[in-house]
C-alpha cells in the first residue's frame, strides 16, 4: 500500500514537472518486494535495479529520504545526487540500485561473498528483471554463487517486458527459474501477485542461504501496470507491445487486493481497518512529498562531494 501510494504520488509530481529525468514505477509488482523483504532480517542486504522504489520501502526505508532523493534534494538518501535509481541506506541493508541492467546482481553476490569470508550471518538478496536475466553479469554471478555456495537469493521480477520486448521473444527458456538447474541450484516459479507466496518461497531460500546451502533463484511472475518509464521519450503502447485488455487482465489480480481479500477472509483485517491503514499511509506519503518539496537542492559546489573515497586514506 505504501509503495503504491508513493509511486502514485511520484507520477503526479512528475506531471507537475517537479521531478526531472526518468522515473520507472513499480506499480503492480509490489507483492514481490514485500513478500521477499518481510522474510529478511534488518542486517540482510538487498540490491535493486532501475525500477527499484519499492525495494527500499519494503525493506523499511525512510520514504521522506526516498522522496527527497527522487526530487534531487539535499535531504535525500544520496543528498539528491543519485536520483530515482540510487536509494541506498546501508544502516538497514539497502545496498542501492543501478540503472545499468543486471549490474546489481554481482554487487549482491559480492556482499554474500563478504558474508561468507567474514563468517557473518547476513545474507543478500537481489531483485532483477527478465531483461537482466539475459545479461552476462547475471549468469556469471549465479555460476560463482552456486560454485562457492554463497548466501545470496536471486529474485527475478519477471514483469514480462524489457522496455517493450516480451520475455517470450528474448528469453530462451519459458521460465527463467528453469535456468537454475543449469547452475545446480533450486529454481522456483512463484505467483508474483501473491505476497504470501513470495514470502513462503523467500523464507525457505533464506533458511537455505543462512544454513550454508547456497543460493536460490526465485522467479516472481508479475506485471507492471504503467509503461516502461515516465520522463523519457514516451514509450507508447501499441499492438506489437501489449494490449489494454492484457493490462486490464493483470489489474484484476492486483497484489494489494489479493492480500487484502485473503486477510479479510481470514478475519485478520476488516474493511474499516484497511481504510484506516490506507488513510494513514496517504498522509505519510503527502508528508514525504512536502518534505521533498521543502528540502533544498544541493549546491553546485557540492557536485563532487561524496563521489570518491580517498584512496590514500585507505592505503
Amino acid at each position, binding site marked *: 500500500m505504501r509503495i503504491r501510494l508513493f509511486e502514485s504520488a511520484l507520477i503526479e509530481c512528475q506531471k507537475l514537472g517537479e521531478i526531472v529525468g526518468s522515473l520507472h514505477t513499480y506499480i503492480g509488482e509490489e507483492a514481490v518486494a514485500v513478500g521477499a523483504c518481510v522474510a529478511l532480517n534488518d542486517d540482510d542486504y538487498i540490491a535493486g535495479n532501475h525500477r527499484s522504489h519499492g525495494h527500499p520501502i519494503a525493506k523499511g526505508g525512510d520514504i521522506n529520504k526516498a522522496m527527497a532523493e527522487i526530487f534531487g534534494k539535499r535531504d535525500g538518501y544520496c543528498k539528491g545526487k543519485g536520483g530515482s535509481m540510487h536509494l541506498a541506506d546501508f544502516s538497514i541493508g539497502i545496498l542501492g540500485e543501478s540503472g545499468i541492467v543486471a549490474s546489481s546482481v554481482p554487487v549482491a553476490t559480492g556482499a554474500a561473498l563478504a558474508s561468507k569470508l567474514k563468517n557473518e550471518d547476513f545474507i543478500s538478496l537481489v531483485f532483477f528483471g527478465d531483461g537482466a536475466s539475459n545479461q552476462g553479469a547475471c549468469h556469471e554471478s549465479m555460476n560463482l554463487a552456486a560454485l562457492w555456495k554463497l548466501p545470496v537469493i536471486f529474485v527475478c521480477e519477471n514483469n514480462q517486458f524489457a522496455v517493450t520486448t516480451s520475455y517470450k521473444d528474448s528469453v530462451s527458456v519459458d521460465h527463467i527459474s528453469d535456468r537454475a538447474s543449469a547452475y545446480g541450484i533450486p529454481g522456483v*516459479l512463484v505467483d508474483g501477485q*501473491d505476497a504470501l*507466496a513470495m514470502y513462503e518461497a523467500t523464507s525457505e531460500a533464506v533458511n537455505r542461504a543462512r544454513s550454508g546451502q547456497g543460493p536460490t533463484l526465485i522467479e516472481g511472475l508479475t506485471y507492471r501496470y504503467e509503461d516502461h518509464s515516465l520522463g523519457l521519450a514516451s514509450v507508447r503502447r501499441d499492438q506489437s507491445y501489449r494490449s489494454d485488455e492484457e493490462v486490464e487482465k493483470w489489474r484484476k489480480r492486483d497484489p494489494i487486493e489479493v492480500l487484502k481479500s485473503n486477510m479479510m477472509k481470514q478475519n485478520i483485517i476488516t474493511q474499516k481497518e484497511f481504510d484506516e491503514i490506507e488513510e494513514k499511509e496517504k498522509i505519510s506519503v503527502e508528508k514525504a512529498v512536502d518534505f521533498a518539496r521543502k528540502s533544498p537542492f544541493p549546491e553546485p559546489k557540492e557536485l563532487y562531494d561524496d563521489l570518491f573515497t580517498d584512496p590514500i586514506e585507505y592505503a
Partner: protein
Amino acid sequence: MDSKDRDFSSVGIIANPLSGKDIRRLVASASVVSTHMKSNEILKLYAGLVAYGIKKVYVMPDYSDISRRAREQYSEKIETILINTNILDAEETTIRAAKKMEANKVGCIIVFGGDGTCRLVSKHINTTPILPVSTGTNNLFPLNLEGTVVGIAAAKFCLLKNIKKYCTREKKLEIYDGNNLIDSSLVDVVITKTPYIGSRAIWDIKNIDELFIAKISHEGIGFSSIGYSLLKKDLDFNKGIHITLGENDYNNPQKIMSAIAPGKIEEIEIQGWKEFDNNNEIAVKLSSGTVALDGERTIEFSSSQKISVKLNIEGPYCLKVKEILST
C-alpha cells in the same frame, strides 16, 4: 458407459506448462520439469498416435506452445486443432480445454501433469476416459510412462473402441461445505493449519492436522505415503483412509517414518487412523485453515464453514495401459 457415440479417430492432449516448477524444488529435492522435456514427450506421443492411425488431435494451447514441434513435424499426417480457450497458462485454460474435448467426444484425453492437473481435468469431464501421465511432483495418480508408449496406448485404445473393457473407474474424495459439494481430489485431501493458500504446495508436517487418502502405493511419495506406512498394503477400492496427526492420548505413541516429498523423510506422530467406506462423510476437525487437494492448498476455510470429506468410487475413467498394450 457407452463407447458408441465417441469419435475414436481423435484424442485430446492437455499438457500443464506449469507442472514441475513449484516451491518443492526449494523445500525438497524435486527436479525441474522443463518445458523442453514436455515438448519432447508430446513429439514422441504424436509418433505413437500417427503410427496407429489417429487422424485428429485437440490440444490445449499454452504460452510456451509445448506442442509446436510435434504439430510441425507431423502436420501432413495428423490434424491438430488448438482449442480456443481465450486465456493461457491458468487453471481456467485446463478447464475450458477439458470441457471442449469432452464436447467433441474425443476417444480419450491424454493429460501430462501431476496429481493436481489430473484432478482439474477429471473434475470437469463426465465420461471421457483419460490417460494421465506424470510430469509433476509427488505423483501417484498419473503414470510414469514414456511419450511414445503413451501415444501407442492412446491410439490402440481408440482402435479397440471398448471403454468398458479397457478402462478402469478410479475413485475420488469429495469436499463438502455443509451440504454443498465444493471440490474433489483423486489421491488425498490434507487439512492444514496454514490460513492461506500462498505458494500452494505443502511440505511442513507441523502444519498438517488431518489426512484423507483415497489412493496409496508402496512406491508412492507425498502425504499419501503416510497411509501406506500405516496400512502396509493397498487400500481396497471402496475404502479410504483417515489419519489424524499429532500427539495421542496413549502411553504408547505411534510414530512412523514417511517420504512426504522427494528427498524429504519425516518422523510423523499419529494420533489415530481408520479406514472409511464409500459414501461415508467425515467432518474436518479444524475450524479454520486450508484444504490441500492432491498436494496443493486450494480452499481456505473459516469457522463459519462446515467442511467434510466423502469417498466416492465413481471417479474418472482411466485407460488400462497394460491391457491395451497387450492386445
